[in-house]
């Protein structure tokens, strides 16, 4: 093997026999690798003003979501009643923000729910859908893409045929069908989204993985004896990470839009309030013709803000994935 029979010895002969010194833990170093990568991304991302603002927006929404019970003035799905005797439902009340004499910041809905509280609690649904769907679609897509790109051949063919199949199905209609079948529940909506959305991430990560695989440093790892998983996790994954995050960010936006769409047509979760259900309700009760714009405009704005933020953060990642920079 390496040095035993060599009469000339080797560069390392005097080292063997000495104690193994500070062997840094394998996991520690892998963790550190990822941490450094993320830190570098962070720096580049936050360079861009639009990304900074977007991140603040998202952070703002997250705070609202976490502290919803403290921020909301009432319970979102509890009917509000007029006066102390509590008989008449406080419907169609005008918002106090606009100067009306009411205790509801944004007024109430046709069913007597406080709009402001609905808005606040709606943040939770939006973020839940957005983040969970994004994490899973980016995660599954990346995993599939890495495996397909790395192994190539039949594995790649099989996985990509699956992706092709999924591509054949239009997003919203399929989500609607799935939700209709599984039941109108926030989790089912999230599930339906995940089942379809990972396809685009998979495609893109696969092509990156294919080209990365041919680069000399991957071949060097192969020559050194690295196993498949080692190469995928330590060489391919960190280098496709920017793309993963990019698709993750876009995924947030798409997920929120999809949920809003599904809820809007009435397949939303009746037990949870979301901005989509608010829009649906406002349409059902013809808020527009009654001029109660304070019912549907705020949720619309919130959806818009969050979606745009998602996209802008994704765009920030485009800078990072720009090959010119590497």
């Amino acid at each position, binding site marked *: 093997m390496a040095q035993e029979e060599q009469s000339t010895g080797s560069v390392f002969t005097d080292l*063997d026999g*000495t104690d193994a010194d500070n*062997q840094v833990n394998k996991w520690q170093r892998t963790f550190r690798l990822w941490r450094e990568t993320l830190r570098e991304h962070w720096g580049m991302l936050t360079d861009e003003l639009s990304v900074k603002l977007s991140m603040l927006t998202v952070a703002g929404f997250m705070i609202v979501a976490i502290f919803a019970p403290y921020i909301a003035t009432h319970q979102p799905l509890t009917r509000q009643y007029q006066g102390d005797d509590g008989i008449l439902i406080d419907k169609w009340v005008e918002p106090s923000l606009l100067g009306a004499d009411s205790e509801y910041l944004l007024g109430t809905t046709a069913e007597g729910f406080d709009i402001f509280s609905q808005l606040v609690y709606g943040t939770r649904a939006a973020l839940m859908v957005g983040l969970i769907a994004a994490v899973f679609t980016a995660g599954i897509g990346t995993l599939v893409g890495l495996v397909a790109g790395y192994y190539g051949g039949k594995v790649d063919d099989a996985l990509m045929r699956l992706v092709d199949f999924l591509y054949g199905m239009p997003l919203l209609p399929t989500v609607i069908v799935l939700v209709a079948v599984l039941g109108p529940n926030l989790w089912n909506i999230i599930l339906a989204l995940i089942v379809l959305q990972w396809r685009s991430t998979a495609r893109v990560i696969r092509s990156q993985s294919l080209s990365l695989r041919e680069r000399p440093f991957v071949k060097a790892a192969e020559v050194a*004896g690295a196993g498949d998983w080692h190469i995928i996790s330590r060489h391919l994954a960190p280098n496709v990470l920017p793309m993963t995050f990019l698709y993750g960010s876009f995924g947030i936006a798409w997920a929120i839009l999809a949920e809003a769409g599904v809820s809007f047509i009435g397949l939303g979760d009746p037990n949870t309030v979301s901005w989509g259900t608010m829009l649906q309700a406002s349409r059902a009760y013809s808020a527009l013709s009654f001029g109660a714009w304070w019912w549907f405009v705020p949720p619309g704005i919130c959806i818009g803000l969050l979606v745009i933020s998602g996209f802008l953060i994704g765009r920030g990642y485009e800078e990072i994935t720009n090959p010119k920079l590497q």
Partner: protein
Amino acid sequence: MTGDDVLLEVDDLKKHFKVNQGWIASLMESFGSGGPDYVHAVDGVSFELREGETLGLAGESGCGKTTTGMSMVKLHEPTDGDIVYDDTRLSEASDAEIKQFRQNAQMIFQDPFESLNPRMTVYDTVAEPLRIHDIRNETARVQRALEFAELLPPEQYFNQYPHELSGGQRQRVAIARALVLDPDFIVADEPVSMLDVSLRAGVLSLLDRMTDEFGLSVVYISHDLSLLRHMCDRLAIMYMGKIVEKGPTERVIEDPQHPYTQSLINAVPVPDPSVGRERVELQGEVGDVIDIPTGCRFKDRCPEYIGDVCDQVMPPLEQKVSFEQEVACHLYESAEGYDPYEELDGSPAATETGQGTESTPADD
């Protein structure tokens, strides 16, 4: 200086790549509309690598030298033929034996900018092979490897990323990575061609030191014959997937016998304006490596073409009577008793052509 022990033997290595067709064409072909096309990148290459020697694989682009080098470190699985290491045929080796082999066979690549994972520090890059093989003493070995590669002080480089280093430094890190496992041999694929000229000698001297001081064998792949003359003990010239001439460097360069080698050497420019050079007029281009012609592959361009025997009988690489190096050419008399003219009037089976071609040679 060089022992005569054979470290590794390449035995009739063949590597054919299927030309990408798409699945419809593949389907159609299973209905018999002709065989698939193969690029015969390496088509029957044999040589020995001895302990402590630097062997050059030379040739122009597409001749198969890089594919041969990569096959030697098992980055490619041979289509046919084998690599024999330590008396073991690698195609029959167990997984454990292959892993052991990988500790002893390393490679350096051409592009210093692509050789290192941009997300890994220098320390991690050089330490990785040690971790894969669970070798103790990691930090000390990494340090020593970096020292040997003249990246001093090593500690300064531990936490640097590739993009902070220059091309020359990156290549040195790649060398340190290749050396850290203390391999028996290294395949170096154009290791300095992308470096500035003034830096090349420094990097090459590292390889020299490894060979001289520690008995490392190096397979040096390049198209730059001037460099190969400077670095290598023995030289093999490749053309269209086969070796056409092989022997001690001095002999091959000073006294080339194969017409292709002669043209190649004549074509090399010399950094000396006072030296007149007989310009070579080699017509045509390198032949098609998919549809291999019968007989000698160089026949269409050879200025010394002698007739049917060149056209139909493929010359084997063998020892010839009048000189030291082995040559694959019908011009010279074989020292091994082989007579190509016998095959000329004989059966089609006598000629070897690459597999996958449809025509049966010598059938006219």
